[in-house]
């Protein structure tokens, strides 16, 4: 049952992440949602590794960690910059990044 339950946890994390991304207004929460998505992926990778007794699952998790860390660092830096430039940290301010010419 352990592995099945672990998959259920992954599904929970995934749904929560998606919900955060879709529903929350603040960009910080959006990033938190993304972390949850990464973690859901990691859980599934580990379940796979455990099921077939392979180290590949764990290697994959390590790479995911590195990638998510890298992405997060960059995104947070961008977030600060958005706050500075656009004066807000909500999702909706980002539409100002769009080319204005067409409006």
């Amino acid at each position: 049952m352990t592995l099945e339950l672990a998959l259920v946890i992954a599904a929970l994390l995934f749904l929560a992440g998606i919900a955060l991304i879709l529903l929350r207004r603040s960009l910080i929460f959006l990033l938190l949602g993304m972390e949850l998505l990464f973690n859901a992926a990691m859980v599934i990778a580990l379940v796979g590794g455990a099921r077939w007794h392979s180290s590949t699952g764990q290697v994959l998790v390590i790479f995911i960690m590195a990638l998510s860390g890298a992405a997060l660092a960059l995104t947070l830096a961008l977030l600060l910059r958005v706050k500075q430039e656009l004066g807000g940290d909500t999702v909706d301010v980002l539409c100002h990044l769009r080319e204005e010419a067409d409006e």
Partner: protein
Amino acid sequence: MTALLVLLLALIVLMSSAALLVVRSPMHGAVNLGVTLLALGILFLVLGAPFVAALEVVLYVGAILVLFLFAIMLLRTPVQPEPEARWRSGFWWPVILVLLLAAVVILLFTRPPPLLTVIREIGPVIIGRALFGPYMWLTEAVALLLFAVIGAVLAVHRREGHDA
């Protein structure tokens, strides 16, 4: 025994992520994420991956969460002077989507494949061999990527300095 433990972990994850969804303050959100991550660390141990479990605690709780805290601090989001909208505008569409997604995921999980396997622990030694053996080039590439991140962050900041 382990099943019970995992069930407990699932409950914790469920609750903390639900809380994550509704809390107003980013600080509260970060704390809830920390709880989720710690629970996941335990789950990883159960899944026979002690090295990854350790990394989860050290890296995620230790580094990434701290990064979040710094960001929150730098954003100087007010502690809650006025009640800010929790949800973004145009709320219903995404809610329906999320509910649909949940339904589909639940449907998918109603008939899981049997995964009756004894979980064996795979230790850091094997992981290390794998990382620096067959995955050598990938590891190097990731190292390069991390290096590049530093450059990218610097680039973002330099523009900032330039503007200011």
